[in-house]
């Protein structure tokens, strides 16, 4: 056999529909705009963890679909979300990424808002007709719902409720996230030169275990591939369907990991479980510590990643330090795994940017065991349903 010819390279793969994806889904500006309009402006999305807003009036800014949002705990303890935009002339209201704001005062003409989103003050209101009055000048509110401590938001007022959207996808995390108060101890952002899906694919693709030195040595052989269980859910979510195992002794400096701090509720130090929530949030637990990452598209070729690490709220300093250590072994900007995933996402973006790469193959069929690509296929099925485009041929020649 020899290298492939031009026609062979560019030909649509002879694979069943859904088993390959065109490179254009990462680069085409119209496809991108469709994603913003039909996915990010419509679906529920993870915004932050409840522990980031412990007290009334605590707020957290969130980037979403090109917009800045304020998640704030009201004086009634409820978490609400607003566009971070003044009703008057569009002043950006809050700029610090987090804080406590009993009153939100716009810097520009000093209109004020409260934690329920109501406009509470307009200087010299007498200059306006009755159309411009406090009563009608509140902030734009967004739907907000909290599940197992995770705060989700939706721009679309017509979206089905959060429970319907999530379905059973968070069940394997309900004990871990929902029975003990957890707390975010790690947060970092990184802007990558790649499409948001290229990042999220690193979470959905198990086959790339082979890329990571740590996973080659601790995970690939830790249990028979056919005993692994993967699962896909309605609405494009997927994840582990039973715990995968890690054998830390395979990687010398991880040996003994987990002996120094109790695992999170409902798990074992050597358990590995994950869920990939559509469109772009992954929750990954490795026994003693859990990571939540979210990808926010900034452009077809730019993605904001936010990574959180969580431990148990109120735990001893010793336990916290151990969890932090376990977190940093795999994750964070100096982790052994995360930089490798980022390199992978940017490297594939390089290939698709000028259409050198034409298709990516997601055709591993292992009956939801081993390193099946079923989670990727479930994602792209939902992606296709929402954008009205075929992931294998997103620019239909008939309508282009």
């Amino acid at each position, binding site marked *: 056999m020899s290298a492939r010819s031009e026609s062979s390279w560019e030909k649509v793969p002879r694979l069943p529909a859904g088993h390959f994806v065109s490179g254009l889904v990462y680069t085409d500006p119209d496809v991108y705009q469709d994603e913003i309009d039909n996915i990010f402006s419509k679906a529920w999305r993870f915004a932050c963890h409840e522990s*980031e807003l412990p007290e009334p009036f605590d707020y*957290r800014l969130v980037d979403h679909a090109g917009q800045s949002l304020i998640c704030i705990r009201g004086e009634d303890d409820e978490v609400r979300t607003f566009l971070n935009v003044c009703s008057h002339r569009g002043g950006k209201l809050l700029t*610090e*990424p*987090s804080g406590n704001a009993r009153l939100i005062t716009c810097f520009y003409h000093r209109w004020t808002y409260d934690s329920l989103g109501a406009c509470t003050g307009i200087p010299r209101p007498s200059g306006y007709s009755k159309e411009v009055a406090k009563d009608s000048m509140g902030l734009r509110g967004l739907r907000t719902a909290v599940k197992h401590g995770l705060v989700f938001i939706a721009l679309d007022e017509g979206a089905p409720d959060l429970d319907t959207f999530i379905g059973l996808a968070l069940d394997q995390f309900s004990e871990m996230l929902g029975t003990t108060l957890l707390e*975010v*101890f*790690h*947060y*970092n*952002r*990184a*802007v*990558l030169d790649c499409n948001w899906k290229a990042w999220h694919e690193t979470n959905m693709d198990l086959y790339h275990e082979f*890329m*990571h*030195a740590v996973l080659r040595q601790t995970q690939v052989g830790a249990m028979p591939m056919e005993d692994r269980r993967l699962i896909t859910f309605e609405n494009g979510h997927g994840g582990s369907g039973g715990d995968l195992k890690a054998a830390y002794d395979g*990687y*010398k*400096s991880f040996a003994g990991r987990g002996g120094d701090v109790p695992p999170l509720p409902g798990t074992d130090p050597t358990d590995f479980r994950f869920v990939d929530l559509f469109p772009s949030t992954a929750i990954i637990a490795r026994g003693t510590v859990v990571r939540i990452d979210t990808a926010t598209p900034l452009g077809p070729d730019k993605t904001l990643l936010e990574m959180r690490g969580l431990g148990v709220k109120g735990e001893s300093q010793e336990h916290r*330090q151990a969890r*932090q*250590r376990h977190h*940093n072994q795999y994750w*964070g*900007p*100096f*982790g*052994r795994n*995360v*930089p*490798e995933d*980022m*390199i*992978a996402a*940017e490297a594939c973006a390089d290939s698709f940017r000028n259409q050198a790469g034409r298709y990516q193959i997601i055709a591993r069929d292992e009956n939801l065991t081993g390193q099946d690509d079923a989670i990727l296929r479930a994602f792209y099925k939902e992606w296709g349903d929402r954008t009205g485009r075929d992931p294998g041929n997103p620019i239909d020649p008939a309508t282009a």
Partner: protein
Amino acid sequence: MNDLKRLLEREAVRPLIGGAGLALDDGDFARFLGYCDDPFNYRIRVWSPDLKKDMTWLEHDREGLIELFKSLPEHLQRQGRLHRQVTVATVEPSNVDGFLVVTSPFVVHHTNLEGQTHTLAVGRYIDIVNMIDEKIVLTARDVMLDTRDLGIGLHVPI
């Protein structure tokens, strides 16, 4: 006499901090460890304005660093070269006799395989330097990073 002592300390510290930086730039980790005490403690710390908390992003003792350096060839790493611009700013006595606290602002530039250079990170080294023995060495390094977006991140100490 005291002034002279301080001056000599400062002069002794400069090639230590500078040499350790050059060793890291060269990826010569054995040479870097030659500048470090046994025991040695290394941390990368970052203040999070998002969480209003201090974070630790990397922490190793000497053995941990040795294991990390040994494992590097197996890992997929950022390619190219780092260049640390380190300036020793202050050299102060610590509250333990014979040890100094040395604060050095730094800028790390990354040069990629195409030869383009960009700023990767800025911050400060807060070093504890052991002056007791003839060999002047780093006993502890806290890297206080200002930069929080490190792009694809790093497998090696800053």
